[in-house]
Protein backbone atom coordinates (compact mmCIF):
# COMPACT_ATOMS: atom_id res chain seq x y z
CA UNK A 1 0.00 0.00 0.00
CA UNK A 2 1.41 3.35 -0.96
CA UNK A 3 1.28 7.02 -0.13
CA UNK A 4 -0.79 8.79 -2.78
CA UNK A 5 -1.22 12.48 -3.25
CA UNK A 6 -3.80 13.66 -5.78
CA UNK A 7 -3.98 17.33 -6.75
CA UNK A 8 -2.89 18.44 -3.33
CA UNK A 9 -2.70 22.15 -2.67
CA UNK A 10 -1.99 23.90 0.60
CA UNK A 11 -1.85 27.54 1.65
CA UNK A 12 -0.53 28.99 4.88
CA UNK A 13 -2.64 31.75 6.45
CA UNK A 14 -5.31 31.26 3.83
CA UNK A 15 -7.67 34.15 3.51
CA UNK A 16 -5.42 36.67 5.21
CA UNK A 17 -3.00 39.18 3.83
CA UNK A 18 -0.12 36.86 4.69
CA UNK A 19 -1.43 34.05 2.50
CA UNK A 20 1.29 31.94 0.95
CA UNK A 21 0.81 28.93 -1.27
CA UNK A 22 3.16 26.17 -0.19
CA UNK A 23 1.92 23.29 -2.35
CA UNK A 24 0.47 23.70 -5.81
CA UNK A 25 -1.40 20.76 -7.31
CA UNK A 26 0.99 18.08 -6.17
CA UNK A 27 0.57 14.59 -7.59
CA UNK A 28 2.85 11.84 -6.43
CA UNK A 29 3.04 8.25 -5.28
CA UNK A 30 5.44 6.57 -2.95
CA UNK A 31 5.41 2.79 -2.99
CA UNK A 32 5.92 0.50 -0.05
CA UNK A 33 9.55 -0.14 0.90
CA UNK A 34 10.92 2.53 -1.43
CA UNK A 35 13.84 4.73 -0.46
CA UNK A 36 12.85 8.19 -1.55
CA UNK A 37 14.80 11.44 -1.53
CA UNK A 38 12.76 14.63 -1.55
CA UNK A 39 14.83 17.68 -2.32
CA UNK A 40 14.48 21.29 -3.39
CA UNK A 41 15.53 24.74 -2.34
CA UNK A 42 14.56 26.50 0.86
CA UNK A 43 10.88 27.34 0.61
CA UNK A 44 10.08 24.84 -2.12
CA UNK A 45 7.47 23.11 0.02
CA UNK A 46 9.35 20.05 1.26
CA UNK A 47 8.49 20.47 4.94
CA UNK A 48 4.87 21.21 4.12
CA UNK A 49 4.69 18.13 1.93
CA UNK A 50 5.93 15.64 4.49
CA UNK A 51 3.59 17.01 7.14
CA UNK A 52 0.78 15.72 4.97
CA UNK A 53 2.12 12.19 5.21
CA UNK A 54 1.46 11.74 8.92
CA UNK A 55 -1.61 13.87 9.27
CA UNK A 56 -0.08 16.99 10.82
CA UNK A 57 -1.49 18.93 7.93
CA UNK A 58 -4.53 18.20 5.80
CA UNK A 59 -4.68 19.22 2.17
CA UNK A 60 -6.91 22.21 1.50
CA UNK A 61 -7.69 20.80 -1.87
CA UNK A 62 -7.05 17.36 -3.30
CA UNK A 63 -6.53 14.21 -1.27
CA UNK A 64 -3.87 12.33 0.62
CA UNK A 65 -4.13 8.57 1.11
CA UNK A 66 -1.60 6.65 3.15
CA UNK A 67 -1.85 2.88 2.83
CA UNK A 68 -5.44 3.21 1.78
CA UNK A 69 -6.37 5.42 4.73
CA UNK A 70 -7.43 8.96 4.03
CA UNK A 71 -5.90 11.86 5.85
CA UNK A 72 -9.19 12.82 7.39
CA UNK A 73 -9.17 9.72 9.53
CA UNK A 74 -7.11 9.76 12.68
CA UNK A 75 -3.68 8.57 13.26
CA UNK A 76 -1.80 8.36 10.09
CA UNK A 77 1.12 8.76 12.45
CA UNK A 78 1.02 5.06 13.23
CA UNK A 79 1.64 4.38 9.57
CA UNK A 80 4.01 7.22 8.77
CA UNK A 81 6.51 8.12 11.48
CA UNK A 82 7.91 11.60 11.09
CA UNK A 83 11.26 12.56 12.58
CA UNK A 84 11.78 16.33 12.67
CA UNK A 85 15.02 18.25 12.33
CA UNK A 86 17.31 18.35 15.38
CA UNK A 87 15.52 15.49 17.14
CA UNK A 88 17.60 15.91 20.31
CA UNK A 89 15.39 18.89 21.11
CA UNK A 90 12.43 16.59 21.72
CA UNK A 91 13.87 14.57 24.58
CA UNK A 92 12.05 14.89 27.87
CA UNK A 93 12.06 11.60 29.75
CA UNK A 94 13.74 10.83 33.02
CA UNK A 95 15.02 7.67 31.38
CA UNK A 96 15.55 6.57 27.81
CA UNK A 97 12.75 4.06 28.35
CA UNK A 98 10.28 6.83 29.13
CA UNK A 99 11.15 8.64 25.93
CA UNK A 100 11.06 5.62 23.65
CA UNK A 101 7.87 4.22 25.18
CA UNK A 102 6.07 7.57 24.80
CA UNK A 103 4.66 6.76 21.37
CA UNK A 104 3.45 3.17 21.84
CA UNK A 105 2.11 3.84 25.34
CA UNK A 106 -0.02 6.66 23.99
CA UNK A 107 -1.70 4.15 21.73
CA UNK A 108 -2.52 1.78 24.54
CA UNK A 109 0.48 -0.52 24.76
CA UNK A 110 1.44 -1.50 28.29
CA UNK A 111 3.39 -3.91 30.44
CA UNK A 112 5.46 -6.62 28.85
CA UNK A 113 4.34 -5.84 25.35
CA UNK A 114 5.53 -2.26 25.83
CA UNK A 115 8.85 -3.39 27.26
CA UNK A 116 9.45 -5.62 24.27
CA UNK A 117 8.52 -2.88 21.84
CA UNK A 118 11.05 -0.54 23.42
CA UNK A 119 13.89 -3.05 23.55
CA UNK A 120 13.17 -4.09 19.95
CA UNK A 121 13.34 -0.49 18.82
CA UNK A 122 16.62 0.12 20.67
CA UNK A 123 18.08 -3.05 19.17
CA UNK A 124 16.94 -2.06 15.69
CA UNK A 125 18.94 1.13 15.95
CA UNK A 126 22.03 -0.49 17.32
CA UNK A 127 21.65 0.90 20.82
CA UNK A 128 22.70 -1.09 23.84
CA UNK A 129 19.78 -2.29 25.96
CA UNK A 130 21.52 -0.97 29.09
CA UNK A 131 20.83 2.49 27.80
CA UNK A 132 17.19 2.05 28.79
CA UNK A 133 17.70 3.14 32.35
CA UNK A 134 19.97 6.10 31.69
CA UNK A 135 18.89 9.69 31.43
CA UNK A 136 18.65 10.66 27.77
CA UNK A 137 20.42 13.92 28.54
CA UNK A 138 23.54 12.09 29.65
CA UNK A 139 24.08 10.62 26.21
CA UNK A 140 26.19 11.85 23.34
CA UNK A 141 24.57 13.89 20.56
CA UNK A 142 24.54 10.97 18.17
CA UNK A 143 22.94 8.65 20.71
CA UNK A 144 20.30 11.23 21.57
CA UNK A 145 19.26 11.35 17.94
CA UNK A 146 18.99 7.58 17.83
CA UNK A 147 16.86 7.51 21.00
CA UNK A 148 14.30 9.84 19.45
CA UNK A 149 14.37 7.80 16.26
CA UNK A 150 13.83 4.67 18.36
CA UNK A 151 10.78 6.36 19.83
CA UNK A 152 9.37 6.81 16.34
CA UNK A 153 10.28 3.27 15.25
CA UNK A 154 8.65 1.88 18.40
CA UNK A 155 5.31 2.79 16.85
CA UNK A 156 6.12 0.34 14.06
CA UNK A 157 5.42 2.65 11.13
CA UNK A 158 5.42 1.42 7.53
CA UNK A 159 6.96 4.66 6.38
CA UNK A 160 9.77 6.54 8.09
CA UNK A 161 9.95 10.17 7.09
CA UNK A 162 13.01 12.20 8.09
CA UNK A 163 13.39 15.96 7.79
CA UNK A 164 17.05 16.86 7.15
CA UNK A 165 18.39 14.02 9.30
CA UNK A 166 22.03 14.95 8.82
CA UNK A 167 21.64 18.62 9.60
CA UNK A 168 23.99 19.82 12.31
CA UNK A 169 25.29 16.32 12.84
CA UNK A 170 28.94 15.87 13.63
CA UNK A 171 31.01 14.05 10.98
CA UNK A 172 31.59 10.93 13.06
CA UNK A 173 27.89 10.21 13.36
CA UNK A 174 26.96 11.16 9.84
CA UNK A 175 27.99 7.97 8.09
CA UNK A 176 26.63 5.78 10.87
CA UNK A 177 23.24 7.44 10.57
CA UNK A 178 23.20 6.82 6.83
CA UNK A 179 24.05 3.15 7.30
CA UNK A 180 21.32 2.88 9.94
CA UNK A 181 18.86 4.19 7.37
CA UNK A 182 20.09 1.64 4.85
CA UNK A 183 19.60 -1.11 7.42
CA UNK A 184 16.08 0.04 8.24
CA UNK A 185 15.25 0.09 4.55
CA UNK A 186 16.48 -3.44 4.14
CA UNK A 187 14.16 -4.55 6.93
CA UNK A 188 11.21 -3.54 4.77
CA UNK A 189 10.39 -0.01 5.84
CA UNK A 190 9.89 2.75 3.33
CA UNK A 191 12.39 5.52 3.95
CA UNK A 192 11.56 9.07 2.86
CA UNK A 193 14.31 11.62 3.41
CA UNK A 194 13.99 15.35 2.90
CA UNK A 195 17.46 16.74 2.41
CA UNK A 196 19.66 19.30 0.71
CA UNK A 197 22.59 16.90 0.78
CA UNK A 198 22.04 15.25 -2.57
CA UNK A 199 25.60 13.96 -2.67
CA UNK A 200 25.24 11.61 0.22
CA UNK A 201 21.66 10.53 -0.38
CA UNK A 202 21.46 10.03 -4.12
CA UNK A 203 23.50 6.81 -3.92
CA UNK A 204 20.98 5.41 -1.42
CA UNK A 205 17.77 6.56 -3.08
CA UNK A 206 15.58 4.54 -5.41
CA UNK A 207 13.41 7.51 -6.26
CA UNK A 208 14.05 11.25 -6.27
CA UNK A 209 11.40 13.95 -6.04
CA UNK A 210 12.40 17.54 -6.74
CA UNK A 211 10.12 20.31 -5.52
CA UNK A 212 10.18 23.78 -6.97
CA UNK A 213 7.82 26.49 -5.72
CA UNK A 214 5.38 23.98 -4.35
CA UNK A 215 5.21 21.92 -7.52
CA UNK A 216 6.75 18.58 -8.41
CA UNK A 217 9.48 19.49 -10.88
CA UNK A 218 10.79 15.96 -11.18
CA UNK A 219 9.93 12.46 -9.97
CA UNK A 220 11.97 9.45 -11.06
CA UNK A 221 15.07 7.37 -10.52
CA UNK A 222 18.45 8.90 -9.66
CA UNK A 223 19.82 8.12 -13.11
CA UNK A 224 16.86 9.85 -14.73
CA UNK A 225 17.40 12.76 -12.37
CA UNK A 226 20.96 13.24 -13.54
CA UNK A 227 19.85 13.18 -17.15
CA UNK A 228 17.00 15.62 -16.91
CA UNK A 229 17.69 18.01 -14.05
CA UNK A 230 20.35 20.69 -14.34
CA UNK A 231 20.28 21.87 -10.75
CA UNK A 232 20.75 20.97 -8.00
CA UNK A 233 23.17 18.21 -8.94
CA UNK A 234 25.64 16.24 -6.83
CA UNK A 235 29.19 17.59 -6.92
CA UNK A 236 30.57 14.46 -8.54
CA UNK A 237 28.15 14.71 -11.46
CA UNK A 238 29.04 18.37 -11.90
CA UNK A 239 32.70 17.42 -11.94
CA UNK A 240 32.10 14.85 -14.68
CA UNK A 241 30.26 17.39 -16.77
CA UNK A 242 32.97 19.98 -16.30
CA UNK A 243 35.72 17.52 -17.18
CA UNK A 244 33.91 16.70 -20.41
CA UNK A 245 33.78 20.37 -21.28
CA UNK A 246 37.54 20.51 -20.75
CA UNK A 247 38.32 17.73 -23.18
CA UNK A 248 37.72 14.57 -21.21
CA UNK A 249 35.40 11.83 -22.36
CA UNK A 250 33.73 10.44 -19.29
CA UNK A 251 30.29 9.16 -18.45
CA UNK A 252 28.14 11.95 -16.97
CA UNK A 253 25.45 9.81 -15.30
CA UNK A 254 27.62 9.20 -12.29
CA UNK A 255 27.27 10.24 -8.68
CA UNK A 256 29.14 7.69 -6.63
CA UNK A 257 32.81 7.90 -5.72
CA UNK A 258 33.62 4.40 -6.99
CA UNK A 259 32.09 4.99 -10.42
CA UNK A 260 33.77 8.38 -10.73
CA UNK A 261 37.17 7.05 -9.71
CA UNK A 262 36.91 4.22 -12.19
CA UNK A 263 35.85 6.50 -15.05
CA UNK A 264 38.56 9.06 -14.40
CA UNK A 265 41.28 6.47 -13.95
CA UNK A 266 40.31 4.69 -17.17
CA UNK A 267 40.21 7.98 -19.04
CA UNK A 268 43.58 9.10 -17.72
CA UNK A 269 45.21 5.79 -18.57
CA UNK A 270 43.69 5.97 -22.02
CA UNK A 271 45.17 9.40 -22.46
CA UNK A 272 48.53 8.02 -21.45
CA UNK A 273 48.86 9.65 -18.07
CA UNK A 274 50.91 7.48 -15.80
CA UNK A 275 50.58 7.12 -12.11
CA UNK A 276 53.72 8.70 -10.75
CA UNK A 277 55.15 7.80 -7.41
Amino acid sequence: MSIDLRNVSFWYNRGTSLEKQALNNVNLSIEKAEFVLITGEVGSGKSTLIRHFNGLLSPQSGSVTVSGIGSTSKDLRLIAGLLMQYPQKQLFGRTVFEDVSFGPSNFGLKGEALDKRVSDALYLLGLDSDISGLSPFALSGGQMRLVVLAGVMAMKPEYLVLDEPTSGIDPQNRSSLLSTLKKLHRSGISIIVVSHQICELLPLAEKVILLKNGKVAFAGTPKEYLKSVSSPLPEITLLMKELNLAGFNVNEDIFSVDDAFREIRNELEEKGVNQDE
Partner: protein
Amino acid sequence: MNNLFLSFVPGSSLLHRLDPRTKIIGLMLSSICILEASSFVEIVLLTFVFLSLVISCKLPAMHFVRSVRPMLFFFAILFITQLLFTEGNTIYRFKWISLSYEGLLLGSIITLRFIFLLLFAALLTATTSASRITTGIERLLRPLPLRYMGISSHDLAMMMSLSIYFVPLLYDNFRSLKEAQFSRGLNIKKTPVKAIFSLSVPLVNSSLRRVEEVALAMESRCYTSLGRTSIHVMEVKKLDYLFFFLYSIFFIFYIL
Protein backbone atom coordinates in the same frame (compact mmCIF):
# COMPACT_ATOMS: atom_id res chain seq x y z
CA MET B 1 -0.39 36.77 19.10
CA ASN B 2 1.49 38.63 16.46
CA ASN B 3 -0.63 41.71 16.73
CA LEU B 4 0.49 42.57 20.20
CA PHE B 5 4.01 43.15 19.05
CA LEU B 6 3.48 44.25 15.52
CA SER B 7 0.65 46.61 16.25
CA PHE B 8 2.92 49.50 15.44
CA VAL B 9 1.74 51.28 12.34
CA PRO B 10 4.33 53.70 10.99
CA GLY B 11 3.14 57.21 10.25
CA SER B 12 3.77 60.89 10.72
CA SER B 13 0.72 62.09 12.59
CA LEU B 14 0.83 64.31 15.65
CA LEU B 15 0.91 61.35 17.99
CA HIS B 16 3.61 59.64 15.96
CA ARG B 17 5.86 62.65 16.24
CA LEU B 18 5.70 62.86 19.98
CA ASP B 19 8.63 61.72 22.08
CA PRO B 20 7.86 58.29 23.58
CA ARG B 21 8.34 59.66 27.07
CA THR B 22 5.50 62.10 26.59
CA LYS B 23 3.23 59.30 25.47
CA ILE B 24 4.26 56.98 28.29
CA ILE B 25 3.61 59.57 30.97
CA GLY B 26 0.37 60.45 29.22
CA LEU B 27 -0.67 56.82 29.32
CA MET B 28 0.15 56.55 33.01
CA LEU B 29 -1.87 59.64 33.86
CA SER B 30 -4.80 58.59 31.74
CA SER B 31 -4.72 55.14 33.34
CA ILE B 32 -5.11 56.76 36.73
CA CYS B 33 -8.02 58.78 35.38
CA ILE B 34 -9.63 55.68 33.91
CA LEU B 35 -9.35 53.74 37.14
CA GLU B 36 -10.95 56.63 38.99
CA ALA B 37 -13.87 56.86 36.60
CA SER B 38 -17.13 56.13 38.34
CA SER B 39 -19.75 58.28 36.73
CA PHE B 40 -21.40 58.57 33.36
CA VAL B 41 -20.02 62.07 32.83
CA GLU B 42 -16.45 60.88 33.36
CA ILE B 43 -16.91 58.05 30.87
CA VAL B 44 -18.17 60.50 28.28
CA LEU B 45 -15.21 62.79 28.95
CA LEU B 46 -12.78 59.91 28.50
CA THR B 47 -14.48 58.86 25.29
CA PHE B 48 -14.18 62.39 23.98
CA VAL B 49 -10.44 62.50 24.83
CA PHE B 50 -9.89 59.12 23.26
CA LEU B 51 -11.69 60.01 20.04
CA SER B 52 -9.78 63.24 19.65
CA LEU B 53 -6.51 61.36 20.11
CA VAL B 54 -7.60 58.79 17.54
CA ILE B 55 -8.26 61.59 15.06
CA SER B 56 -4.87 63.10 15.77
CA CYS B 57 -3.10 59.83 15.03
CA LYS B 58 -4.85 59.38 11.70
CA LEU B 59 -5.35 55.66 12.19
CA PRO B 60 -8.58 53.84 11.36
CA ALA B 61 -10.84 53.13 14.31
CA MET B 62 -10.94 49.46 13.26
CA HIS B 63 -7.38 49.06 14.44
CA PHE B 64 -8.37 49.86 17.99
CA VAL B 65 -11.47 47.75 17.86
CA ARG B 66 -9.26 44.84 16.84
CA SER B 67 -7.01 45.35 19.84
CA VAL B 68 -9.95 44.86 22.17
CA ARG B 69 -11.36 41.83 20.38
CA PRO B 70 -9.12 39.13 21.90
CA MET B 71 -10.18 40.20 25.37
CA LEU B 72 -13.90 40.29 24.69
CA PHE B 73 -14.47 36.90 26.27
CA PHE B 74 -12.74 38.00 29.46
CA PHE B 75 -14.77 41.21 29.55
CA ALA B 76 -17.98 39.28 29.08
CA ILE B 77 -17.14 37.05 32.06
CA LEU B 78 -16.25 40.11 34.12
CA PHE B 79 -19.50 41.81 33.27
CA ILE B 80 -21.65 38.77 33.93
CA THR B 81 -19.93 38.06 37.25
CA GLN B 82 -20.60 41.57 38.51
CA LEU B 83 -24.13 41.42 37.19
CA LEU B 84 -24.94 38.18 38.98
CA PHE B 85 -23.18 38.57 42.28
CA THR B 86 -23.51 42.18 43.33
CA GLU B 87 -25.99 42.87 46.09
CA GLY B 88 -28.57 45.56 45.61
CA ASN B 89 -31.94 46.45 44.17
CA THR B 90 -33.15 43.49 42.19
CA ILE B 91 -34.31 44.37 38.72
CA TYR B 92 -34.81 40.86 37.41
CA ARG B 93 -35.33 37.50 39.00
CA PHE B 94 -35.27 34.02 37.49
CA LYS B 95 -35.24 31.05 39.91
CA TRP B 96 -32.06 31.48 41.92
CA ILE B 97 -30.49 34.06 39.61
CA SER B 98 -31.04 37.69 40.60
CA LEU B 99 -29.69 40.62 38.70
CA SER B 100 -29.33 43.88 40.54
CA TYR B 101 -29.22 47.42 39.33
CA GLU B 102 -25.98 48.00 41.21
CA GLY B 103 -24.59 44.92 39.49
CA LEU B 104 -25.48 46.31 36.09
CA LEU B 105 -23.83 49.64 36.93
CA LEU B 106 -20.72 48.12 38.50
CA GLY B 107 -20.35 45.59 35.71
CA SER B 108 -20.56 48.28 33.07
CA ILE B 109 -18.09 50.57 34.78
CA ILE B 110 -15.52 47.87 35.47
CA THR B 111 -15.74 46.49 31.97
CA LEU B 112 -15.55 49.94 30.44
CA ARG B 113 -12.49 50.75 32.54
CA PHE B 114 -10.66 47.74 31.21
CA ILE B 115 -11.69 48.52 27.67
CA PHE B 116 -10.45 52.07 27.99
CA LEU B 117 -7.15 50.93 29.46
CA LEU B 118 -6.69 48.71 26.43
CA LEU B 119 -7.70 51.42 24.01
CA PHE B 120 -5.38 54.03 25.44
CA ALA B 121 -2.52 51.53 25.57
CA ALA B 122 -3.24 50.70 21.94
CA LEU B 123 -2.80 54.38 21.15
CA LEU B 124 0.71 54.10 22.49
CA THR B 125 1.67 50.86 20.79
CA ALA B 126 0.17 51.89 17.48
CA THR B 127 2.13 55.13 17.27
CA THR B 128 5.38 54.06 18.87
CA SER B 129 7.62 51.17 17.89
CA ALA B 130 8.51 48.74 20.67
CA SER B 131 12.15 49.75 20.74
CA ARG B 132 11.26 53.42 21.04
CA ILE B 133 8.99 52.57 23.93
CA THR B 134 11.75 50.72 25.76
CA THR B 135 14.22 53.50 25.05
CA GLY B 136 11.69 55.95 26.43
CA ILE B 137 11.20 53.83 29.55
CA GLU B 138 14.94 53.59 30.00
CA ARG B 139 15.27 57.37 29.88
CA LEU B 140 12.46 57.84 32.35
CA LEU B 141 13.97 55.33 34.76
CA ARG B 142 17.46 56.75 34.50
CA PRO B 143 17.28 59.28 37.31
CA LEU B 144 16.16 56.56 39.73
CA PRO B 145 18.77 55.23 42.17
CA LEU B 146 18.57 51.71 40.77
CA ARG B 147 22.27 51.05 41.10
CA TYR B 148 21.75 50.41 44.79
CA MET B 149 19.79 47.38 43.72
CA GLY B 150 22.61 46.28 41.44
CA ILE B 151 20.91 47.07 38.16
CA SER B 152 20.60 50.03 35.85
CA SER B 153 17.84 51.53 33.78
CA HIS B 154 19.55 50.04 30.73
CA ASP B 155 19.27 46.57 32.24
CA LEU B 156 15.54 47.02 32.81
CA ALA B 157 14.98 48.31 29.32
CA MET B 158 17.07 45.47 27.92
CA MET B 159 15.06 42.92 29.91
CA MET B 160 11.88 44.38 28.55
CA SER B 161 12.92 44.37 24.93
CA LEU B 162 14.37 40.88 25.15
CA SER B 163 11.12 39.60 26.65
CA ILE B 164 9.08 41.29 23.98
CA TYR B 165 11.36 39.91 21.36
CA PHE B 166 11.52 36.36 22.67
CA VAL B 167 7.87 35.65 23.36
CA PRO B 168 6.99 35.06 19.69
CA LEU B 169 10.15 33.00 19.35
CA LEU B 170 9.13 30.85 22.30
CA TYR B 171 5.75 30.43 20.73
CA ASP B 172 7.36 29.23 17.49
CA ASN B 173 9.51 26.77 19.43
CA PHE B 174 6.44 25.50 21.20
CA ARG B 175 4.58 25.01 17.95
CA SER B 176 7.34 22.98 16.34
CA LEU B 177 7.78 20.98 19.55
CA LYS B 178 4.07 20.16 19.51
CA GLU B 179 4.40 18.96 15.92
CA ALA B 180 7.40 16.82 16.79
CA GLN B 181 5.75 15.24 19.82
CA PHE B 182 2.53 14.75 17.88
CA SER B 183 4.56 12.81 15.35
CA ARG B 184 5.86 10.69 18.21
CA GLY B 185 2.38 9.92 19.45
CA LEU B 186 1.39 12.81 21.69
CA ASN B 187 -2.10 12.34 23.06
CA ILE B 188 -3.16 14.95 25.56
CA LYS B 189 -6.45 13.27 26.37
CA LYS B 190 -5.06 9.83 27.04
CA THR B 191 -1.92 10.61 29.00
CA PRO B 192 -2.17 14.25 30.05
CA VAL B 193 0.68 14.17 32.54
CA LYS B 194 3.15 12.68 30.12
CA ALA B 195 1.92 15.04 27.45
CA ILE B 196 2.61 18.04 29.62
CA PHE B 197 6.06 16.74 30.44
CA SER B 198 6.84 16.10 26.81
CA LEU B 199 5.99 19.70 26.02
CA SER B 200 7.37 21.52 29.02
CA VAL B 201 10.71 19.79 29.64
CA PRO B 202 12.14 20.35 26.16
CA LEU B 203 10.79 23.90 26.09
CA VAL B 204 12.47 24.78 29.37
CA ASN B 205 15.68 23.08 28.25
CA SER B 206 15.87 24.92 24.97
CA SER B 207 14.95 28.20 26.61
CA LEU B 208 17.73 27.84 29.16
CA ARG B 209 20.19 27.03 26.42
CA ARG B 210 18.94 29.95 24.38
CA VAL B 211 19.36 32.27 27.37
CA GLU B 212 23.01 31.22 27.74
CA GLU B 213 23.68 31.76 24.07
CA VAL B 214 21.98 35.15 24.03
CA ALA B 215 24.03 36.24 27.03
CA LEU B 216 27.21 35.26 25.21
CA ALA B 217 26.13 37.14 22.11
CA MET B 218 25.36 40.22 24.19
CA GLU B 219 28.69 40.07 25.98
CA SER B 220 30.64 39.63 22.80
CA ARG B 221 28.94 42.73 21.45
CA CYS B 222 30.12 44.69 24.47
CA TYR B 223 26.89 45.00 26.40
CA THR B 224 27.36 46.90 29.63
CA SER B 225 24.86 48.25 32.08
CA LEU B 226 25.99 51.79 31.61
CA GLY B 227 26.51 54.31 28.92
CA ARG B 228 24.29 52.85 26.24
CA THR B 229 23.10 55.24 23.60
CA SER B 230 20.30 54.69 21.16
CA ILE B 231 19.72 54.65 17.43
CA HIS B 232 16.60 56.68 18.12
CA VAL B 233 16.62 60.40 18.56
CA MET B 234 15.03 61.33 21.84
CA GLU B 235 14.12 64.95 21.63
CA VAL B 236 11.54 66.74 23.63
CA LYS B 237 10.08 69.24 21.23
CA LYS B 238 7.50 71.99 21.42
CA LEU B 239 4.78 69.56 20.47
CA ASP B 240 5.70 67.45 23.47
CA TYR B 241 5.51 70.39 25.86
CA LEU B 242 2.13 71.29 24.43
CA PHE B 243 0.75 67.82 24.95
CA PHE B 244 2.30 67.56 28.37
CA PHE B 245 0.69 70.84 29.32
CA LEU B 246 -2.66 69.79 27.95
CA TYR B 247 -2.95 66.50 29.71
CA SER B 248 -1.51 67.81 32.95
CA ILE B 249 -4.28 70.40 32.99
CA PHE B 250 -6.82 67.73 32.15
CA PHE B 251 -5.49 65.46 34.86
CA ILE B 252 -5.56 68.10 37.58
CA PHE B 253 -9.00 69.19 36.50
CA TYR B 254 -10.19 65.62 36.54
CA ILE B 255 -8.88 64.70 39.94
CA LEU B 256 -10.44 67.71 41.59
